[in-house]
C-alpha cells in the first residue's frame, strides 16, 4: 500500500471505531459521566468539605485530576477490549485480516479509537467538574501530553487483553481486578504522604500513581513524584506494549488458527 492508501485505511479504522462508541453513547459516554458526577458530589462536596485541604488545595480540586485520569484509563481500556473482542466474536475481524492493511494500521486504528473515547469521556468529566470547582491549568502542554499518552497506553493494553480473551468474561477481569484497585490505590483520592512509609514504597510500584500525579501536576502544579520520570515511564510502557501487541497480531495470536 502506498502512503495515501495507508492513511485512508487508518482513517477508515479510526472512523469505524469512533462511530461505534458514538452510536452506543448511552452505554459509552453517559455512564462514566454520571459515575464521576457522583464522585464529585459525594467525595468532593459532602465528604471533601470535612477533609479540608490537601497540599494547600481544596479536596474537591485535588481529586478532580485523578478522577479525570480514572475515566480516561478505564474508558480507553474497555473501549478497545470490548470493540476488538466483539470483532473477534462476530468474526468481522476477518474483514481486516483479508484486506491488505498492515497489522500496525489495524492496531493503530483500534488504539486511536480507544484513546478518542477515553479523551472524550475525560473531556466530559472535566466539563462536569467545572460545576463543582475552578481549575487553573498550570502546565497545559504537559497536561495534554500525559493524558494523551495514558489514553494510548491503556488502549494498547485493552487490545492485548482482547487478543488473548476467549470469552466476554475475559475482557472484564483485568478492569475489575487489576485496573480499578490500581487506580484507587494510585493517589486519585489522597496524597501518598498520608501513607505509612512502608506503604508509600509499595505504592511507588503502581504505574497509575505516576500518571495521576503527572496529570495532577499539569493541572494543579503539585505532585507526589518526579514528573519527568513519570513521562519516561509512560513512554517506555507505550513502546513495550505496542511492540508486544504488534508481535502478537503478526503471529495471529487469538485470531488465526
Amino acid at each position: 500500500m502506498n502512503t495515501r492508501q495507508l492513511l485512508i485505511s487508518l482513517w477508515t479504522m479510526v472512523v469505524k471505531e469512533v462511530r461505534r462508541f458514538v452510536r452506543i453513547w448511552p452505554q459509552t459516554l453517559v455512564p462514566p459521566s454520571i459515575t464521576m458526577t457522583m464522585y464529585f458530589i459525594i467525595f468532593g462536596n459532602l465528604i471533601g468539605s470535612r477533609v479540608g485541604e490537601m497540599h494547600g488545595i481544596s479536596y474537591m480540586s485535588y481529586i478532580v485530576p485523578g478522577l479525570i485520569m480514572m475515566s480516561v484509563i478505564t474508558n480507553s481500556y474497555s473501549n478497545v477490549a470490548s470493540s476488538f473482542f466483539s470483532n473477534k466474536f462476530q468474526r468481522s475481524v476477518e474483514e481486516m485480516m483479508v484486506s491488505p492493511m498492515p497489522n500496525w494500521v489495524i492496531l493503530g486504528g483500534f488504539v486511536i479509537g480507544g484513546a478518542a473515547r477515553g479523551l472524550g469521556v475525560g473531556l466530559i468529566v472535566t466539563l462536569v467538574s467545572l460545576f463543582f470547582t475552578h481549575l487553573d491549568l498550570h502546565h497545559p502542554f504537559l497536561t495534554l501530553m500525559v493524558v494523551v499518552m495514558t489514553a494510548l497506553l491503556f488502549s494498547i493494553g485493552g487490545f492485548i487483553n482482547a487478543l488473548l480473551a476467549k470469552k466476554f468474561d475475559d475482557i472484564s477481569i483485568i478492569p475489575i481486578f487489576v485496573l480499578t484497585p490500581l487506580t484507587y490505590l494510585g493517589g486519585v483520592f489522597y496524597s501518598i504522604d498520608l501513607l505509612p512509609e512502608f506503604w508509600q514504597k509499595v505504592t511507588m510500584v503502581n504505574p497509575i500513581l505516576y500518571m495521576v500525579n503527572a496529570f495532577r501536576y499539569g493541572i494543579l502544579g503539585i505532585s507526589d513524584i518526579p514528573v519527568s520520570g513519570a513521562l519516561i515511564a509512560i513512554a517506555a510502557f507505550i513502546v513495550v506494549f505496542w511492540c508486544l501487541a504488534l508481535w502478537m497480531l503478526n503471529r495471529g495470536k487469538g485470531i488465526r488458527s
Partner: protein
Amino acid sequence: MAEPALSIRGLTKVYGNGFEALKGIDLDVEQGDFFALLGPNGAGKSTTLGIVCSLVQKSAGQVKIFGIDIDHDFAKAKYNLGVVPQEFNFSQFEKVEDIILTQAGYYGMPMKEAKPRCERLLKDLGLWDKRNGAARMLSGGMKRRLMIARALIHRPRLLILDEPTAGVDIELRRSMWEYMRRINEEEGTSIILTTHYLEEAESLCRNIAIINRGEIIKNTSMRGLLTELDTETFLLDLAEPLEAAPQVEGFEVERVDSHQLALSVRKGTDLNDAFQQLTRQGVRVLSMRNRANRLEELFVSMTSPPDAGSGIDSATSTPAKETAS
C-alpha cells in the same frame, strides 16, 4: 502464458492437536475460470481457502495469487482477492452501506471512488433500499448478498465464494447464479466456488477439484468429470400402481413405491429399449427425472469410505423401499 489466478504447491496444514488437514495439495485455477472446489465436510476446503485468504496459517507449501507469492508480498496479493465466507462475518450493528464503504477504506480506496461503486453493487444485488438499515435487520439471503457486494467493492480479480447460497431460497439462488455468471463472463473475474449444492457447481463451473481427507482426489474439467459417470438413475412416475418391479432386460429396475420405479441406465445404453419393454408389459410412464444430480452421484462415489459402498443409493434423496430386478 498468463500466471494462474491461484497456484498452490505442496500446501500442508497441521493443526496444533496434530490433525493433518492438508497433505501437500497442488492446485491451479486459471485466470477467468469458474472453478468448483468440492469435498465433504472436514475435507480441507475451508482450510485451503482460509490459507489463501490469510485467515489460517499454513504449515508448509507455496501459494501464489496471480503469480504473487503470499510469503513475499501478501498485501499485494490480497488486492486481487475478494472473499465471501461461509459464515456471516460483519458487524451486525453497522449500516449496510457503512460495511461496504469501510471495507473499501481497508483497501485504501478513496471515498469518492468507493461511493459510486458501492451504489452500483447495492443496486445490482437488490440491497439499495436497505443501505441505511442495520445489517442485523436483513434476511439471510440479503446478508449473503451483502457479503458478495463487500467482497467486490475493490474490484478483485479472484473471487472466493465459500458456500455463498447456503440457506438461500431457490429463486434467490438462481438470481445469485446469474450474477456470478455475469461477473465471471463480462468482467473476467476468476471465481472459486465451494458448495454443497452440486447442481450449482455443475451449472456454473467449468473446472473442478474434489478434495477428500486433505488430498485432491480429482482435478479436471466439469465436462470431463461428468463423462466418467457410468450409470445414471431415472425415476419413472407410473400411471397405474405396480405390485412388483417389472423385468426389463439390460437394465436394473427398482420399485420405489407402487407408483414409482427407479431405472438405472448404463452409459451408451439405448433408453428407448427400456420404454419399449415397459410398454409391452403394460406399464405406462407419465414422467421421468434424474434420481440424483449427476455430479452428486460421482461425488458420493468418490468421497465415500471404501466400506460404505459407492453408490447411487447413498446419494439419493428418495430412499428405496423395496428392490426387485
